[in-house]
């Protein structure tokens, strides 16, 4: 079956597959690392054991998710070279140093302090343990910052010149790092990670509330998660809108595909809610649309003219149907999250936050929504950048490594088999841990790899008795 595909298509499939799998883990661990820091901080401040129990619970889940993020991330750092070597040669001088900064400032920070955060509380004391927890959270955020700068530069390149070998040569690092789409993309992604985590935490809280409304840990985490959903979703919708306007300015073709605007609209473009993109006829079949609303959203003027894909050369047109659909999935989920947040506020105001099984079921159902929305959002922006790797400058077809199609096909199959097996197992283990109540003494068979000797937990003077009992 794969024999019918070109090396380019196979390499693109492989990159899309491995990066999609990878982004799921950071999207979760960025938010969860911050949540752990908040939980540990609240435990130290209030000495309320509920926070400590929650910290211990989510810490173990974090360890598994983080491990999967690390190993799938190492793959990414080599795949630029193995499959996209011409891109690496050309764009390496610009994006390479940004990734080096990511490794130096973020990966080492996370890795160096992760061991202490997971296993070291009894050995280093509460203060240093808190410091390590904050460093892990900071590392995840720094990592997001650098990698989004890289991605944004590929979308909206700035601060470069091109030398005789066709390499992009950095001229102004400030302009490169803070390229036009970077601030928008960074805010949009970090909020997305926080929302994703909030929805997962909320779903786990809801699950345990459905079993026992009095469960103290379930109540605490559900309440915290619903505050996040209620407060962050409106911010995210606002940030997404700003990001969209920025995209309209710098990558109009992507917005045309998102909107499904094959044709130009000189006096006000309609907002197409639904429809079936028809690539052959270059139109949207069965379109359900609201007249002039697109112009209002994008230009803040009902009658503002909007160009369509008819103004773009066919060679430069992104695949419309994928972008059109993924964008709608993301938006629909965003509004569903808003609905959940508002519902939780209303229930909270009525004093029924912990006594509304219907709300809990909705929160449970929304648990994976963040992941789907993150993936849909990335599909929108990455496929919308096509047919370029560096927007407008370097075509995807010109970025490819000189590797034969059979080699790429073999590695693609290997990645698919291994990832589904390994990450399927990991997801199963995480789901099983989530299924256990946080207050239960252990959530796995053992509480994870247990540390070396030296200082016995009994020597701890101010540490939590509970943790010593758990080992870890």
């Amino acid at each position, binding site marked *: 079956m794969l024999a019918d595909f070109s090396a380019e298509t196979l390499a693109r499939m492989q990159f899309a597959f491995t990066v999609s799998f990878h982004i799921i883990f950071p999207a979760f661990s960025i938010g969860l690392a911050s949540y752990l820091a908040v939980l540990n901080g609240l435990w130290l401040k209030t000495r309320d054991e509920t926070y400590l129990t929650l910290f211990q619970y989510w810490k173990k889940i974090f360890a598994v998710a983080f491990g999967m993020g690390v*190993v799938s991330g190492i793959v990414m750092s*080599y795949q630029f070279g*193995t499959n996209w070597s011409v891109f690496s040669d050309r764009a390496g001088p610009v994006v*390479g140093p940004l990734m080096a900064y990511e490794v130096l400032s973020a990966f080492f920070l996370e890795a160096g302090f992760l*061991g202490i955060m997971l296993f*070291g509380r009894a050995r280093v004391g509460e203060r240093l343990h808190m410091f390590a927890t904050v460093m892990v959270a900071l590392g995840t955020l720094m990592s997001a910052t650098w990698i989004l700068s890289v991605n944004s530069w590929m979308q909206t390149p700035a601060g470069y010149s091109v030398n005789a070998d066709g390499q992009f040569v950095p001229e102004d*690092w400030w302009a490169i790092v803070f390229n036009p789409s970077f601030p928008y993309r960074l805010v949009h992604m970090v909020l997305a990670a926080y929302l994703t985590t909030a929805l997962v935490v909320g779903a786990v809280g809801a699950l345990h509330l459905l079993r026992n409304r009095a469960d103290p840990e379930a109540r605490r985490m559900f309440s915290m998660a619903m505050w996040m959903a209620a407060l962050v979703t409106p911010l995210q919708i606002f940030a997404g809108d700003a990001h969209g306007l920025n995209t309209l300015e710098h990558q109009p073709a992507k917005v045309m595909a998102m909107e499904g605007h094959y044709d130009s609209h000189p006096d006000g473009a309609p907002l197409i809610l639904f429809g079936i993109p028809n690539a052959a006829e270059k139109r949207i079949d069965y379109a359900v649309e609201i007249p002039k609303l697109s112009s209002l959203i994008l230009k803040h003027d009902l009658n503002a003219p909007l160009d369509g894909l008819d103004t773009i050369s066919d060679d430069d047109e992104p695949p419309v149907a994928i972008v059109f659909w993924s964008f709608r999935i993301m938006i629909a989920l965003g509004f569903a999250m808003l609905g959940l947040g508002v519902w939780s506020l209303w229930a909270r105001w009525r004093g029924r936050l912990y006594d509304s099984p219907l709300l809990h079921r909705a929160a449970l159902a929304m648990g994976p929504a963040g992941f789907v929305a993150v993936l849909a959002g990335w599909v929108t922006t990455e496929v919308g950048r096509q047919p370029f790797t560096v927007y407008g400058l370097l075509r995807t077809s010109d970025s490819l490594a000189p590797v034969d199609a059979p080699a790429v096909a073999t590695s693609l199959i290997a990645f698919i088999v291994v990832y589904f097996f390994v990450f399927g197992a990991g997801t199963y283990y995480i789901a099983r841990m989530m299924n256990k109540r946080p207050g239960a003494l252990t959530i796995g068979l053992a509480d994870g790899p247990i540390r070396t*000797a*030296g200082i016995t937990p009994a020597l701890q003077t101010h540490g939590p008795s509970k943790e010593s009992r758990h080992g870890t």
Partner: protein
Amino acid sequence: MALDLAFIWAGLIAFAVLVYVVLDGFDLGIGILFPFAKTEGDRDLMMNSVAPVWDGNETWLVLGGGGLFAVFPLAYAVVMPALYMPITLMLLALVFRGVSFEYRWRTKRWKRVWDAAFFGGSFLAALCQGIALGALVQGIEIEGRAYAGGWFDWLTPFSVLTGVAVVVGYALLGACWLVLKIEDALNMQMRGYARLLGIATLVLIGLVSLLTPFQDPVYFQRWFSLPGSLWTMIVPVVMLALVWVFFTGLARGSDVTPMLAALGFFVVGFIGLGISFYPMMVPPSLTIWQAAAPESSLAFALVGAVILIPIILAYTAYAYWVFRGKMDPNEGYH
């Protein structure tokens, strides 16, 4: 005089790769020795001895790859497609072994599966790294700015030999690490392995060293022409001294000396490779300066490296310090 940034960066990348080899070397080595553990308790101890640090160790591999991408993009663009199969296999192997650190504690029925994944992943990753090294020493065919060979060029008897040498060498590091971290029966068992693996490693290093000068006439000249060979002869002399330290250390029951001497084998071997390679980044035709990114890239990345690498080394050392000392087998069972 302007600083030679490309040269400084070649040194830094070499440093990152060396740190990776010695650090991840012993933790991959523990995976390679995993099937030889006699009890499940021993396996738990072995894995726990590296669990707090393995992630940091592996980050040096990302720095090696990411650093190459950043400052020698042409070398990265040539080497990765040339080593497509071994690199891809190594990455998949690292996936298996990396997740088994957490997974094997999360299941009873499948614990054996993740034990096997830990061994298989560690073994295959080490083998692929050794093969990649051998393939690089042999030289990589370049045309214009791209790899020009086929997708099985990396596979030769020489690269298989370097692959085996790295597997055995990593197992030696793993055995020495366990001698350092663990007491009683497992310590004695690993001490015995360390002696055998030490002999095997030295034989393999010797074979690779003998064959290397014949891979490229430039290497031969570097090692066997006066007056250069007066300097290069320091390498085998230091190696012989380390061999003496290693075996006497083992014999008198020291826990620390064998580990230090085994690390020394790798450092000296690495320096030997450096002597063969210089001034090539990718033998036989791509030099450090040809492969280097534009000056503005080198300078920008160097600022970060100069500030951050010392900090990284400091907190990495701290993390090792926190988890210092012998493992207590009683901690961790409830």
